[in-house]
């Protein structure tokens, strides 16, 4: 059985400034597992995609000043597994399968290219998306780090 080594919960206002904050927090959190430079880069990128989706899409119809938060819950396990869950209480996704297909975007032309989910899937071992229209979306990213590097 795998054992949890450490857990972290974060709640950030849904603002673009916090995309960088989320990346930095997650990379500091996983440092204990001694990820390789590439693994760390993969995680930072996958987290950035999920968090950016909250900022860009989840709260797109919300009125100015209405509360909008991104919830991040991360865990590391003794089998070198990292899991990061990114949730919002936003508009939700009507058709998750369609949303996950490459190039699909409801974003603004020239700003988004519909590659976020494709990138997450390529950089993680598992990506699950749960969404309910009008309620919000939860993206779970799971990645197993290599055992190649250890600090003993």
């Amino acid at each position: 059985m795998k054992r949890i080594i450490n857990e972290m919960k974060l709640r950030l206002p849904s603002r673009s400034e916090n995309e960088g904050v989320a990346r930095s927090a997650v990379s500091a959190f996983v440092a204990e597992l001694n990820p390789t430079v590439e693994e760390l880069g993969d995680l930072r990128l996958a987290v950035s995609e999920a968090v950016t989706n909250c900022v860009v899409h989840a709260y797109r119809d919300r009125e100015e000043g209405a509360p909008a938060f991104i919830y991040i819950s991360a865990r590391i396990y003794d089998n070198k597994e990292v899991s990061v869950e990114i949730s919002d209480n936003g508009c939700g996704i009507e058709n998750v399968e369609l949303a996950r297909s490459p190039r699909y975007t409801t974003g603004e032309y020239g700003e988004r290219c519909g590659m976020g989910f494709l990138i997450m899937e390529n950089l993680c071992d598992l990506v699950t998306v749960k969404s309910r229209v009008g309620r919000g979306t939860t993206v779970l990213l799971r990645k197993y780090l290599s055992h190649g590097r250890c600090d003993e």
Partner: protein
Amino acid sequence: MENERVAFSHGEGRLVARICGEVDHHTARLLRERIDREAFLVRPRVLVIDLSAVGFMDSSGIALIIGRVEVAAEFGGVVQITGATQPVKKLIRLSGIERIQGLTVSP
């Protein structure tokens, strides 16, 4: 953040935009505006986007590159990506943009 920068130099039909810092949704808008302003002034044959000082980039950067290819095409120019670091190269490979017409990615 205001410390996200892009520096320009040009000559012989080339405009080099050297981006410093992280390219994400937060920083992309300003970068886009600055590059486009300069590009329409200079109207280069080759718009070089130098990524050697970019430590992090996400899909916002991919959209930025695709958009600059379209901008350059408006005055008959092409885009060349140079200096991409390992993680940025990986992102570019994943996104498949190397196949876009009017774009070359230097190794």
